[in-house]
């Protein structure tokens, strides 16, 4: 049983990646690789939906920062979606993620901000 499931969808020119499960140092690297593969050159950006993620640690956050760097060199954006007050939201806050990467409450809001 994989620790986390990944499903991706392309809406217009935005890639929406939905993660479900737990992300730690055992699977963060391969999830980061998979996300990188799904973002093609003409994509505007990537929305990572963490709504169904019940656990993530510093390895996951490291991968998110690395993704942001990679996308930025190609002129692409990344936004995260979390439920306010959830364990994932708390972890992102503790790690200082919201100061560096845009965090939204819904996928629709994140897509609007990338397409704007």
């Amino acid at each position, binding site marked *: *049983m994989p*620790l986390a*499931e990944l499903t991706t969808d392309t809406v217009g020119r935005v890639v929406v990646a939905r993660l*479900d*499960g*737990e992300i*730690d*140092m*055992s699977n963060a690297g391969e999830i980061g690789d998979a996300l990188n593969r799904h973002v093609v050159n003409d994509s505007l950006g990537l929305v990572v939906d963490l709504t169904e993620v*019940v*656990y993530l*640690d*510093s*390895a996951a*956050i*490291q991968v998110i*920062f690395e993704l942001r760097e990679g996308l930025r060199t190609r002129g692409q954006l990344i936004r995260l979606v979390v439920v306010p007050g959830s*364990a994932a939201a*708390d*972890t992102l806050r*503790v*790690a*200082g993620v919201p100061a560096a990467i845009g965090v939204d409450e819904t996928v629709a809001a994140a897509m609007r901000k990338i397409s704007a």
Partner: protein
Amino acid sequence: MDAHVPDDALSQPGEGQVFLGTRGLPSAHPHAEQLLHMYRLSDPALSDLPLEALLDELLQRTKATLDVDTVAVLLIDENERELVARAAKGLEEEVERGVRIPIGGGFAGRIAAERVPIFIADVNHAEIMNPILREKGVRSLLGAPLIVDGRAVGVLHVGTLTPRTFTNDDAAILQLAAARAAPAIERARLFEALEREHRGAVALQRSLLPDRLPDIAGIDVAARYLPARDEVGGDWYDVIELPRGSVGLAIGDVAGHGVRAAALMGQLRTGLRAYALDGYEPGETLKRLDHLLQTIRGRGMATAAYAVFSPETGAVRMANAGHPPPVLISASGEASLMAATTAPPLGTLPYPTYVDVETSLQPGETLLMYTDGLVERRGEPLTAGLERLRAAASVSASADALCQRVVQTLVPGFAAADDVALVALRSEAIEATMQLQLPADPRVLAQVRQVLRRWLRAHGALPEDIAAITLACGEACANAIEHAYTPSRATFEIEAAHRAGTVTVAVRDRGRWRRPRGAHRGRGLMMIEATIDELDVRATATGTEVFMLRRLGS
């Protein structure tokens, strides 16, 4: 008599010798001697021998009776339409080299095709396909078909190294031997084929059951499968690791026996596992399995029960399709049967409904599922068997010990008329302190979280406490794993304790503490500091200890 021991008198008949059981017959008289030989060839004990011993004995006796130098049996290989040398005396190479003769060709091939005895006075002037006969210097041959129900199943032939004119009497004796042996050979061959099929079916059955149960932190699982005495059956069990740390426990029983039941069992086990992994609730899983069964050609019916257990909360959801009621065993060893189901077995009624029943399995408690072969005895009401099971399923050292005792008590000698499957899951007891010794491998992190959450919940921690301590412990463990010097063998240790509303977690490794390097590791340490009340990183005699403390509800 012991038919395995060749009778010396028969093997080497001497002048004027009187044979056992034939006292009073004038042995010097040639007809009388032939009669004795014929008597030995029609010995009913031959029928009881396994095929190899039967052929050996038959050849021995034929060789002696007809006073020949060689004797051989070839059997028809039904797939190849060929005769295959199966046993021989004086012509052992024929068997060793696996001589094959096409039916209809050569000496033996013609006997099989025409189903008549054939005599060859001089091998040098005859059409002989088998080179070994010439190599061995065989000069004269006499052969007779082995016939069962008018059908040739093989050939029995004898030969001499000096020219010999076989008589009609010789041919009659050989035909008698062949007629006597043919049904026994055929019976032994069928029996061997059945045995092969049975062994194949048992191997198939085994291959369709889990070869190894998953090792899941916080729970203890064990299972047994006992094949029926005579036939394989369609019982199965399964333990399925589900998303978010839940565990699926399944048991089932396909009606009927034999390879077909075992094969259908394999399909149903895979089907149930697939629906379970897709995250369906137990009732929905069984409904879909019923639907799947309806689409299988020559379908049968099956009973099954499927339960999903959450180690973190102890919640159990279960659905049952006509399967015997599972047993719940309390921490103190009292066993009780769950309510019997009224839902139909899979594959019996259109549009069945399988309802999810909720129960709980608290630390120390065990859930036991089994098939009816465990409790059913001929001529005895089912309630008696269930009562025996209830009495046998009491407090045990482990899930495995429980399975062992239940099987020993209810299936003495481990041989049941029906096949038996059972699977037990125990929620491990929770102590005041918890110690884990783990390999330095990132894959253990998920198990650590699961077992820690379960332990924290049992100690009254709130969801925020659980999330905070799990994250801090996870970061400390990741650090220990990353700094392990010898990745293959290194281990680390976790010790968690709860005292008066304060939880402490110590993570110890055997490496020297290294300053966190880079933003990533620094972030991990920062995250620990942000989620707990006290952090201390200490160098110990053997390595490094990360000590963390959090006051619950803070």
